[in-house]
């Protein structure tokens, strides 16, 4: 398990990915940074690269053009990470479900790459900022649970063992 797990209780790094959306969900995500919601005071930060991310906040229907990029980004994100599908489009393509320019939706594309991926869903068109915060908090709790489950039992080092004998 990576050191990232141990530090989760202090901060949560979110990387935002747009796979073909109308902007609504994306703007509401930005809304979270502004004084009205100010999620940075809880330690939730948007980061500029998937390599630093704990959470991939994904919006959009995953168009044909976006699908390979989404796979690349997921693979570039160190594990463990949670994919947070935000908005009806990211859940199941919503009103655009039968468009010619989209194949499989976000969670199916992620599972092609990683069948065991942890995926969370925030429905809405767009979800209210409060709903997104609730989604992030639930994801955070889930990551904390995983961290607690993964924590190894304390083990004596060989030097200490030698000293005891």
């Amino acid at each position, binding site marked *: 398990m990576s050191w990232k797990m141990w530090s989760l209780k202090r901060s949560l790094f979110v990387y935002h990915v747009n796979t073909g959306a109308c902007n609504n969900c994306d703007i509401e995500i930005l809304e979270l940074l502004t004084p009205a919601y100010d999620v940075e005071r809880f330690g939730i930060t948007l980061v*500029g690269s998937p390599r630093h991310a704990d959470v991939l906040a994904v919006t959009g229907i995953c168009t044909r053009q976006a699908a390979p990029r989404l796979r690349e980004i997921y693979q570039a994100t160190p594990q463990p990470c949670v994919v947070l599908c935000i908005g009806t489009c990211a859940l199941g393509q919503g009103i655009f479900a039968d468009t010619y320019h989209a194949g499989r939706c976000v969670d199916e594309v992620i599972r092609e790459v990683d069948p065991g991926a942890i995926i969370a869903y925030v429905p809405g068109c767009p979800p209210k900022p409060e709903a997104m915060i609730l989604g992030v908090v639930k994801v955070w709790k889930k990551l904390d649970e995983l961290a607690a489950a993964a924590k190894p039992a304390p083990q004596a080092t060989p030097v200490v063992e030698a000293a005891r004998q």
Partner: protein
Amino acid sequence: MRIAVNGNRSVLPIGPFHPLQEEPECYYLTVEGERVVDLDVRISYNHRGIEELSSRRTFDQVPYLVERVCGICSASHPLAYIQAVEAICGCEVPERAKYLRTVVAELERIHSHLLWAGLAGHFLGYNTVFMWAWRYREPVMALLEKTTGNRCTYANAKIGGIRRDIPNAMFEEILHDVESIYGPIEMLTHAVMDDPVLHARLTKIAPLSNADAKRWCVTGPTARGSGVAIDARRDFPYDAYDRIDWKMIVFEEGDVMAKMKVRMLETLEAIEIIKRALAGCPDGAIDAEVEQVPAGEAIGRVEAPRGETFHYVRSDGGRGPVRHKIRAPSYVNVPSFRASCIGQHIADVTIALAAVDPCYSCTERMAVLEKTPAGGRLADAEYLRRLSVERTRWFEKQLGIEPFDRRWGPRLQELL
């Protein structure tokens, strides 16, 4: 697209999934030294085939679809479509519906321009502007939710009128809320328009000449910042715009500063329009109750915050449109980058590209992470934004002026 390094020229793709840009962008700049010599754009990441979807919907279902073309121009797309269908029907929309459509459209203009102002502030290193502008978007979003049921994608307009009335009892609350934000927005407008660093930084940057603005067929603040006095609210009057007195703001210079001024002053003007629309709004029906759309074809034009939204609809008398063409304003504004950005310094590119206020999902943008042959990333929007911020700092030092955030930060804290 590959990065080519050819002598002094290199191609920079710009646009990571930047945290403070609601959609990543995918522009390819060819730079020579530090000057842009060419610009290309790859769009298709957000293409959702909406025109094709529309031809498989009924007339009444289409507004729900097209208000999701773009979340920020969410009122203008359904309005333009509905206008086209109403022209085919030849129906008369009730007066009350016209006034209330106007109110929602102007509320959207305010929140869209403030959104832009915030992002522009971020690109320039003025985080106070970002926080200020987006803080005062909140009451507008709350008003939109109170009046239409949603913060965005309002679904308030329908063919022949509006779906849900805004009762007169609510007018006082709307007036109170917009008047309460007028002061802070006016203060922000003057802080930005009178700022000597911004004047030095943005004047003569990425100018789009009047002649180029016409050749590239631009619309909206991009056109009005270059002396092209066009506005669909005046040139193709719809809803209550020919019943209310309002002003069109035009600047001649065509640079980033001019476009910024157009948007800031339009925000204040939008508040005035809302006040006048509510004052003049008559009682009465809100829906012409159109039963059937006959065969025919027509266009609809609406002035979205970014410019003219243009829709064309053809009907054969059936259940839905046979053909529905959607042209968002950014579709004609964005290509004008070739005229305004060539020759510019790469530190100015971020703000120059933002000055056109591209609604990315209207024109379908997404970023690509590119690696150089050597393995590192050549450039991205964050790198260019940092260059832009450094340039602002340089101007501050040259003029001996404290950073904007330090000058205005405490003032904003007081307001908040």
